[in-house]
């Protein structure tokens, strides 16, 4: 599947315990976050009612009337669970580990306010200032941030690598023009552009299109830095004999770029990737912190951080959880990055270790 060179590099990566371990943990976090609805949700996993089984997690909503309740809105499964266990007539509800959605205000007391972590209430990390479960917000917020970052990296690489390689490969006027264009483009301050674009976006955009738009704007202003690396690398590779050989054999430009040059500059690409991801997570968190990211009540790390800093004294558990999560994520990705860099470094015995 891989050529022996790459295989060797991958093996080397696996030998670097810190990086390899981080990758495993991060993959695990990603997988778990994909299944977040099964772990953190106010919808039940399984409801057995009158002999029928319901699996409400991924289906359309079940009005209360479906389970013999007197309201037509979404069933409150936590109360349903209590009701069934009191009645003891064979109906039962299995709730996820954390039985709260990230957006619902749930308080056992009479006020919406930040409460400290409590196993009894199943608020394992406490609640935020309006009594929303922090763990739930953290899980969903992290999921959005992670997948946003991955999507961002993919798009940035697609554009950056294509254009960068072309600049390096074709050179000449093409290179000159694109370089100037990129210089102009990259001088537009990215953060301000996001703020400006978002202040004019009509509010009736739904959540997915807003996230998509944020992604688009961020990608539009971030792909440029990739091109510099790709351009120089391609320039270097272009003068090598194997490129000349391929050209003599009649290979097309795109074949040369994508089949011959690209695999040889893969190490630069891969070592840069984790830092791009880190950058994306930081950017979306910063935007949320400043209030220009995703609209409320979308769960987000940045919003939690903001709440945390505003309530440092009265609710320290908010900042502690949000901050540790962010550090953990960024540390994992950075460890992976360092390991990749080392693994893909052709000079195996450098002082870098």
């Amino acid at each position, binding site marked *: 599947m891989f050529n022996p060179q790459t295989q060797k590099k991958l093996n080397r990566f696996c030998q670097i315990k810190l990086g390899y371990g981080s990758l495993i943990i991060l993959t695990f976090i990603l997988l778990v976050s994909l299944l977040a609805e099964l772990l953190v949700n106010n919808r039940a996993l399984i409801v057995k009612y009158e002999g029928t089984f319901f699996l409400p997690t991924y289906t359309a909503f079940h009005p209360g009337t479906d389970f013999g309740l007197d309201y*037509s*809105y*979404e069933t409150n499964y936590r109360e349903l669970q209590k009701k069934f266990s009191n009645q003891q007539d064979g109906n039962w509800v299995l709730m996820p580990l954390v039985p709260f959605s990230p957006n619902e205000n749930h308080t056992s007391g*009479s*006020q919406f306010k930040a409460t400290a972590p409590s196993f009894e209430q199943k608020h394992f990390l406490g609640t935020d*200032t*309006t009594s929303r479960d922090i763990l739930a917000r953290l899980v969903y917020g992290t999921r959005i941030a992670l997948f946003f970052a991955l999507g961002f990296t993919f798009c940035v690489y697609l554009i950056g690598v294509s254009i960068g390689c072309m600049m390096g490969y074709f050179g000449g006027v093409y290179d000159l023009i694109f370089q100037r264009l990129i210089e102009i483009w990259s001088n537009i301050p990215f953060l301000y552009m996001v703020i400006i674009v978002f202040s004019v976006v009509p509010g*009736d955009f739904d959540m997915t299109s807003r996230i998509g738009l944020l992604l688009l704007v961020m990608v539009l202003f971030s792909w440029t830095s990739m091109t510099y690396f790709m351009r120089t690398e391609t320039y270097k590779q272009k003068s090598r004999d194997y490129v000349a050989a391929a050209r003599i054999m009649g290979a097309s430009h795109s074949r040369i770029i994508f089949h011959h040059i690209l695999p040889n500059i893969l190490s630069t690409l891969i070592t840069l990737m984790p830092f791009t991801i880190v950058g994306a997570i930081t950017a979306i968190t910063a935007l949320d912190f400043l209030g220009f990211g995703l609209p*409320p009540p979308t769960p987000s790390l940045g919003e939690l951080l903001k709440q945390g800093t505003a309530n440092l004294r009265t609710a320290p558990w908010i900042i502690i959880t949000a901050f540790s999560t962010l550090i953990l994520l960024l540390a994992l990705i950075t460890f992976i990055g360092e390991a990749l860099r080392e693994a893909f470094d052709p000079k195996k015995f450098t002082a870098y270790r």
Partner: protein
Amino acid sequence: MLKGLLKLNLPSHLSLLLLLLISACSDSSDTEKSHDANKTPDNTAEVKAYYAANSSFFSFKNLSDLPDDLVWENGSELAEFGSPNAIKGGTQYNSLQDFPRTLRQVGPDSNGSFRRWILDDVSMSAAQAHPNNSNQFFPGLATQWAVSSKRKTTYIKLNPLARWSDGEKVTADDYLFSFFFYRSTDIVAPWYNNWYSTMYTNITKYNDYTISISIPNVKPDMYARTLSLSPTPQHFYKELGGDFVERYQWRFVPTTGAYQVKPSDIKKGRSITLSKVENWWAKDLSFWRYRFNPDRIQFNIIRDNAKVFESFLRGDLDQFGLNLAEYWYDKLADDHESVAKGYIHKTTFYNQHPRPTYGLWINSSKPILDQKEVRIGINHAANWALVIEKYFRADYERLRSTADGYGDFTHPTLTTRQFDIELALKHFALAGFTTRNEDGILINSDQQKLAFTLTTGYEALKDVLTILKEEAAKAGLELRIEVLDSTAAWKKAQEKKHDILFSAFGVGLEMYPRYWETYHSVNAYDQAFLADGSTNPDRKVKTQSNNLELVANPKIDAMIDQYRASSDKQEMISLAHKLDEALYDYASFSPGFKQSYFRTGNWRWIKYPEGFSQKHSSGPTQLFTYWIDQEMKKETLEARQSGLAFEPEIKVFDQYRQDRNRGS
């Protein structure tokens, strides 16, 4: 004239806009330079010509023309307020969330939260409503005044000692000039243009210090209409022209009041400082002498409310508003060290003042929202009771209408629509929204979702909206929350682009509520109706007006016109009640919450007179009756170092508290 003032409490900040602002102002100084080169314009002749052209409005007579039967008043029988023990001097430290966008008092961006510090609370009018009895007036620029209902005219004798802060005399000409100024389209302020053109019929100059002002209809609060008029410094606005907005952007308007802004105290983006006018002309005048005690009031720009609070705890700021429950109960709880040791005093003061109209302003010109049943449904789907009980910890009460808090003028029995899922569903169904989609949101037969954008500029209150959103979803209504920068949100609302706006109008102390601004069709559409009374199919939404609900109803219009023209208090009261009922029926406003008091925390060196504040005051600093005890400040700061404790002070002043259930 506070009606247009949106309470800009706790706005978030766009540093970018600030940058734009700074660059804009450097532009303006450039233009100024080029103007200077072309000789400063002078409109004196133009003003004279305008007076001559409108001779029925601007009259010039002699003292002998004054009617003989006038009964002059001077308000001297009223109780003075403030404390004779007040110590003058010192610097008060305060904060602003946003650097003021302009120092102009009218025109674009002038309606911000800083305006009250240079205009509303500081500048003097002929006479002012007494904060303990809003129907009586104490003298400001006037020494005496007399009212003739028969002639619909108020006669005013100005104090010859009155001076602008630049030393110029305040004369009758400045009053006449007000009408030239506020009617000018150069100031880009349509509301003022309209008000000064329609609400007065004549101003007469008898001599330099005697004027009379007439209004078209005798109103129960005629005094408020005429006496509360402020003069406009004619000598300062000589250069008034098409470039007014830029030319006067950063020039402080001379004031008759105690505080001015010196050019050296404007540190753009960082701080702005008020300083006491040297030898202020009214410093020994009754009703004014015990107020405006600090020498300087410095506003530092702190964008984040959490940081403002931390600065306050450090002692960098003197006072902090504790209206929000989380501050009063949690962040500065009674057992907080600074409070328990008596460094910071906590005060609750029950006042009587028309309440800011917090609520959902529904734009009834938008598709789907133009159906009354949908609006009624939204009213029933808004769970304000939960917000008040759990988020505001039952500190607040439910607002009943936009005309709440006007005594007899407020409808005695009208209540609000309560949160009721069944009723909401019923009304949504009447509008065709009968089935729920897979998310539980209602859709109609055209597959349109019952989903609206809920816009607000109140970043600090966004949690209120998330609670409303979650609850509304139970009734099959989706609210998409959009939190904008306060200025951006207000702009959106003024352009009538909002679906539903969560906002409030700050309301001035007035005898009766206003309806024309917010509910008359002329402020909703250009030509709302055709000549035969039917709806104009080509009508265009009118922007830059306060009819945020786009209410256009001939019956309501007729009542508002009658209300505006009426001089009979009883008739106005009954009209106000009918209007409230009609507006309730129209259901375009979902009343939110109100607070019948204000709460504040202040360091112990900030002293207040006995009784803390006055009945109709809107906040602790509004009347400027506090003072700074600098000895005590030194003592307190030292005590904080050494850990020495003082007697804690947590006080409630409920002498003006009204019965909770009467819904003041």
